[in-house]
C-alpha cells in the first residue's frame, strides 16, 4: 500500500491536469536524420492502417448500393448519394434506426449514471472504511473480471427469463450496472483525492457520514466521476453480447445490434441489401463517441493509465 500511494496520486494528478505532454524523458531529437525519417515512416504506416476502415466508411456513405459493388471502395464516385443515404437511414423500415439511436442513448445514459453512482459509493467504502475480509472481498470482485462473458450471460438469460425481464430494457440495464473495473478505479480516485484527515476533521465538526461523502467527497472527486461515467458510457454504447442474448424484439435493439441485423438480412438471399445504409449508420453511431473522445480526451487517459501504474 505504501508503495502504491505515490503512483495512484500520479494517476489522479494526470487526470486532473490532463498533462500527457512529453516530459524530459528520453533523448530529444533535433533536425532530420535517417533514423528520424524511418521512425516517422513507421508511425505514418500505422496511422494509415488505423484510419483505413474509417476512410472506407466515409467513401461508402456517399454511394448507393450499386456503386458500392461497381466502383473502387476507397475513392469517391459521382453522382454522390450522401443526402439520400441519410434520408434512407432516417426512414428505412419506419425510421427504426432513429429508434435504435434513441435506445442506445437510453441504455448508455442510464447504465453510465447508475454504475458510476454505485461504483463511487462502493469505492468509497473500500477506500475509507475498515471492515472484515475487506481485502479478500476487493480481490474477489476484481478477480471476477476473468469470467468469460458467455459463462455469465447465458445463465443470466435463463434467470432473467424466470423473472420476466427478458426482452425488456431492464434486462440490459440492470446486469450492466455491475462494473468491477469501475469500482477499482473509484477506489483509486478516492485514495488519491480525499485525505483521511479531512474526513476526521469533518467528523469532529459533527458532520454525518453521508454528508461527508456527498458534500465534501463528491466535489473533490469530479474527475474520477467523469472518467468512470465515460468508460461506462462507452462500454454500454458498444455492448453487443448482452443485448443480443436478452433482446429479440427489434424495437428495443441498440445500434450495434440493429446494424448487424441489417447486415445479416442484406446477406441473405431475398433480403434487400442496404449496405449503403449500414455504412452511413455505422458512421452516425460512432460519431457521438468520437466527439466525446476528442472533447473529454484527458478523462479517457486518466482511466486507462490507472492500468499502467497498477501493481
Amino acid at each position: 500500500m505504501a508503495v502504491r500511494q505515490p503512483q495512484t496520486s500520479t494517476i489522479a494528478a494526470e487526470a486532473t491536469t490532463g498533462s500527457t505532454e512529453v516530459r524530459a524523458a528520453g533523448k530529444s531529437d533535433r533536425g532530420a536524420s535517417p533514423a528520424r525519417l524511418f521512425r516517422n515512416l513507421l508511425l505514418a504506416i500505422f496511422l494509415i492502417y488505423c484510419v483505413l476502415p474509417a476512410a472506407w466508411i466515409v467513401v461508402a456513405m456517399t454511394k448507393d448500393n450499386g456503386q458500392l459493388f461497381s466502383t473502387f471502395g476507397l475513392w469517391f464516385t459521382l453522382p454522390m448519394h450522401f443526402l439520400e443515404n441519410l434520408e434512407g437511414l432516417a426512414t428505412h423500415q419506419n425510421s427504426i434506426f432513429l429508434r435504435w439511436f434513441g435506445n442506445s442513448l437510453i441504455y448508455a445514459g442510464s447504465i453510465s449514471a447508475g454504475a458510476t453512482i454505485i461504483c463511487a459509493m462502493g469505492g468509497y467504502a473500500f477506500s475509507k472504511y475498515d471492515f472484515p475480509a475487506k481485502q479478500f472481498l476487493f480481490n474477489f470482485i476484481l478477480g471476477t473480471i476473468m469470467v468469460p462473458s458467455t459463462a455469465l450471460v447465458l445463465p443470466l438469460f435463463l434467470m432473467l427469463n424466470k423473472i420476466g425481464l427478458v426482452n425488456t430494457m431492464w434486462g440490459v440495464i440492470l446486469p450492466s450496472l455491475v462494473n468491477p473495473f469501475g469500482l477499482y478505479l473509484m477506489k483509486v480516485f478516492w485514495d488519491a483525492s480525499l485525505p483521511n484527515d479531512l474526513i476526521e476533521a469533518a467528523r469532529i465538526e459533527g458532520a454525518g457520514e453521508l454528508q461527508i461523502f456527498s458534500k465534501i467527497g463528491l466535489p473533490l472527486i469530479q474527475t474520477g466521476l467523469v472518467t468512470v461515467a465515460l468508460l461506462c458510457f462507452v462500454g454500454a454504447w458498444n455492448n453487443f453480447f448482452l443485448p443480443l442474448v436478452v433482446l429479440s424484439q427489434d424495437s428495443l435493439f441498440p445500434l450495434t445490434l440493429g446494424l448487424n441485423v441489417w447486415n445479416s438480412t442484406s446477406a441473405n438471399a431475398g433480403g434487400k441489401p442496404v449496405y449503403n445504409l449500414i455504412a452511413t449508420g455505422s458512421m452516425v453511431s460512432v460519431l457521438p463517441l468520437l466527439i466525446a473522445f476528442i472533447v473529454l480526451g484527458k478523462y479517457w487517459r486518466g482511466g486507462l493509465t490507472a492500468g499502467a501504474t497498477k501493481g
Partner: protein
Amino acid sequence: MRHYRKTAFLFLAPFLTVFVAFYLAPVLYAVYLSLFVRKRIGLGPPKEVFGGLENYLRAVQDTDFLNGLKNMLVFGIFQIPIMLGFAVLLALLLDRSRGMFPKICRTVYFMPYGIPIAIGALVWGYLYSANLSPFNQILAALHQAPIQFLSPALVLFSIGNIVTWTWTGYNMITLFAALQNIPSDLYEAARVDGATPWSIVRWIKLPLLIPTLTLLFIFSVIGTSQLFTEAFVLRPLGYLADNITPNLYLYLTAARDANYSYAGALAVLLAVLIFIISGPFLRGIGSR
C-alpha cells in the same frame, strides 16, 4: 472503528446487490446447470435430469469444442505477441518524439478502441468480403486472383487483424503512460555513464515496462478467451465454422440448440482454463 462498519456496509450495499444478483448468481447457476443432462425418458419430451459430471466428460471428448480451444490457442500464440510487440514499438517511438505529428498519431492510434467492436468488425467484414473488398478490387485491376479473407484457411488471420486493429492503440497508450512515469533522472544518470539510446531502451525502459506488459498480457489472454463478437458479425459475410472460437460454439449450443446445461459445463471449463493460464501471471503481479 466498529462504529463505522454499518456505514461501510451501507455504502457497499448497492454494488454488492447488483454484483450478487447479476454476476455471482448467474455464475453459480451455470455451475448448477452444468450438472444436469437432457434425457428423453419413455415417449415424453426430453427432461433435465441430474447427471453429475456427465456434461464435463462429454465436453473433454467433444472434438468440436476441443478444436475451438485449439483455434483459441493458435490465435493467442500469434496475435497477442504481434499486437503487444507493435504496441511496445510504437510506445517507444512516441516516447522519444515531440511535436504535432506524434501527438496526432497518439490520438488516432487510440481511436479504434472507441469504436464498437460490432461496428469495427462489420466494416472490416466489408473490407474482406468477396464483392466489396477494395483490396480485391486492386488485385482484380492487376489481373490477380482475389484473396478469400473469410475462407477457413484465412479467417483466423482476418479475425486476428480486427483484434490487433482494435487493441494495439489501447495497449500502446497504456505502455506510453508507463514510460512517461519513468523519472528522467534515470536517463540523465545513464547518459552521464555514456549509455546509447538503444542501451537506455534495452536496460532501463524495457525492464520497467515488464509489470505493465504483464498486466496487458493477462488482459489480452482474457480477451482472447472471450472472442465472440468479431466471429459472430463476420458469419453472414463468409463461411465461418461454428467452433471458430469456443465462445461462439458455446453461444450456439445455448441459443440455437437450447442445450443450456451443456453450454453451462463448457462455460465453466473455459473459465477454469483461463484461470489456470493467467493465474501464475496474476500471482507474479501480486507479489510485486
